[in-house]
């Protein structure tokens, strides 16, 4: 017997004493050990170019709106080996972080310009313009918005000729684990697009792993 599913496409605006103070619900596709692969478009007006990218989630702490992992760029022209960086993410949960970055040379206008590139952001736009999304309850929204900031190079020196000065605006789909992102660095080509899909290492299905810190 087919049943009708209740859709909840638009997050509600919280009311009451603690607006938007709920942590996001855990999403198993965004848990430690999960891997994603895809590309980052680094095209400039002179040249079409895309790097293959692999991402692995290494840490997740929803209470603090924290996510981290590594990003591996595979066919970087000026590097002999794949370049691995470690990044830390701010999860926009409206409790720890809002849609406004307030750092990394990103003004609220830059923020809005980037977030609006994601179709799933459009229902949130009007409220975000008012308060950065502080009063939104995103706990049941099917998309998770984040900022990923690369912190250091894992396998090459910082003199490798590459920069990690910028950061990514990221939108993760809880439905299928797909990730879209836009790199922002005032000194790099604008709107470099990151597109990743969840990977399964040749399996016919999804596999999970975990660790627990003491």
């Amino acid at each position, binding site marked *: 017997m087919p049943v009708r599913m209740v859709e909840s496409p638009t997050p509600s605006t919280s009311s009451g004493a603690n607006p938007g103070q709920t942590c996001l619900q855990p999403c198993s596709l965004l848990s430690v050990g999960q891997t994603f692969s895809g590309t980052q478009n680094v095209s400039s007006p002179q040249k079409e170019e895309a790097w293959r990218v692999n991402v692995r989630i290494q840490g997740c702490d929803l209470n603090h709106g924290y996510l981290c992992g590594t990003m591996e760029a595979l066919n970087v022209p000026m590097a002999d080996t794949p370049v691995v960086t470690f990044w830390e993410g701010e999860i926009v949960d409206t409790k720890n972080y809002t849609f406004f970055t307030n750092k990394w040379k990103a003004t609220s206008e830059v923020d809005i310009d980037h977030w609006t590139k994601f179709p799933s952001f459009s229902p949130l736009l009007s409220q975000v313009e008012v308060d950065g999304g502080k009063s939104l309850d995103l706990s049941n929204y099917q998309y998770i918005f984040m900022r990923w900031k690369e912190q250091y190079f894992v396998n090459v020196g910082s003199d490798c000729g590459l920069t990690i000065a910028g950061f990514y605006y990221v939108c993760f789909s809880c439905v299928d684990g797909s990730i879209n992102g836009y790199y922002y660095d005032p000194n790099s080509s604008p709107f470099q697009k990151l597109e990743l899909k969840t990977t399964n290492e040749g399996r016919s299905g999804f596999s999970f792993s*975990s660790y627990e810190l003491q």
Partner: protein
Amino acid sequence: MPGSASTTHRPEGLIQRLRSAAADGGEAKLKVLRDLKNQIIGNRTKKLSYIKLGAVPFVVSILSSSSFSSDSILVQCAATIGSFACGVDSGVKAVLDAGAFVHLVNLLSHSNEKVVDAGARALKMIYQSKVAPKYDFFQEKNMEFLTSLLDKNNENLTALGASIITHSCETNDEQKILGDAGTLKRLINLLEGTTSQRDASLEAFATIIKQNPQVISEFVGPENGRTWGTLIELTKDKYPRTRLLACTCLILIKNAAPSYLQSVGIRTKLILILLELIDDSGQVGDEALFTLSSFIADEESLQKSAFEANTIDRLCDHMQKESLQPKRLEGMLMILANLCSNLECSRSVLLESPKTISIITDALSHATVDVRVAACMCLKNISRSVKYLSAGHFMTEAVIIPLIQLLDDTSTSVQVAALRTISNLVIDFTMHKSLFVQNGGVKQLVELSKSMDSRVRLNAVWALRNLMFLVDSRCKEGIFLELRALSLTSLVSDPSACVQEHALGLICNLVNGSLDSIDYVFTEDALLLNAVGRQLRNASKPEVLIQGMYVLCNVASGKEFQKEAVMHQILPDSSNGDTQSIMVTMLQSEVAQLRTAAVWTIVNLTIPTGAGALARVVKLRNAGIVSQLKNMANDPCLDVKLRVRTALGQSMIFGDFST
């Protein structure tokens, strides 16, 4: 030319004089007592030597036979006995064995205040030792006596009363009876007395309020303005010991009743006072370290305040400049451990000081057990940083080798502390886990996973589980060969549910990664897979079931025969009289994570590309699993709801058999 020492001042000579003193006149007695007292005051070696020679019973016999002798002799006897008891447990024992206690108590009712003072001081010395007899507060006459001591207008008697409380009050009932008898109020009054009265009262006060919110709410707290104000005031006293004790009382109040001591200003001030007291090179400094450590242990905001007060720099300074006594080093390591339990900024500051890190790693091999444990805790908390684990900061020989050596330690506490540290370090994301394996770490962990001590077993399995996380295929094989399927099977059904949980987490990591990894649970006639299935049918703790279900989920992401093996585990076994699939039970769980794991397993089993997918969907439908999924279409957990949608979508590709 040096002259020969007088034989009468040699221990043997003095003993001889003591022996004959009983028959001597008052002057001779007085002289020998004075000589003895002068020799032993502040000299531990001499005290021990005279105790061995049997001096104490002679002194006590003079005291007991001197009821009609001069007050000076009584004073000297009491002072000598007090000196034997001061700071030396064997002295206290000798004094008690010689029956001095009752005679000293008798002195308290003497008409001469000097005699009373000497008796009180000696008894106080006795009560400062842990071998002193426990005072029974439940006897009415004892409570009357204690109250009378505290009511006296005599510094030594009130201090004795306070010492009795500090020594003997241990249980909540004892705290309550003392509170009800008005003892706290009396102690609070004494806080306005002399330094020794203040310190003794503060110590007794701390003993009565320790971990007892009820007593605190009745007698202390900011609403009892006077007490509160006095304690705050005493944190600024000119005597370090008084400041320390006042801080201790305020911290005990906060620990037992967190609603008190909310003021950020006072909290920061206490941290600053304690930090200053740490500079004291004596006992006050040592105690200040442990007081600060316990103050910040469980509260991130206090850790932050301590961090902002430059605690790390100050401690690093001490650690780098001085050669520290074990107690001091332990205290410092404990504070650093607590500062790093939550704060990434603390970890960063420490990791930027290679000298301090090397002091910490050196402390892993310290001769004192407590220092080794504290060093492990410190490293454990520093390594809670995924950022630094990812940078491979800890997987170095300097850290790993001494930790592996500690797994052989004779102290179980050290073994457990080392295991806990290792379980963090082996998460290492830089693919250097082989360093741990090459140095014999796995062999040791496997050995300890068979320990009779459940704490050791749990932490060994925990470490193996974390080591198995994202490990490369070669290491994985090495670990499995060491562990063997049979041992792992017995860990899955260990008497401790926590061990079961981590053993299942370990297997989950084992079958994650390359597709071939799934084969591990099929070795030896699928020993492991059957053990997991059994546990899923028998266990009740959700954490165990979640891990077990994720093992099945991972196996179900494999080849067709592996998916079929999972089906076999989840469908009811009519030969066992099962009527309901364990999957239905899991899907109906109140724990969202368990429902998520169960739905993921079904998602993997119903992926339509598999040759046997249709047959599996039919079986799942017949077992009532698909209809249970339909009931969950609007599950309150978003993750569950989305996976249910996928699972239903996949199973309906083959048609809706219900219509």
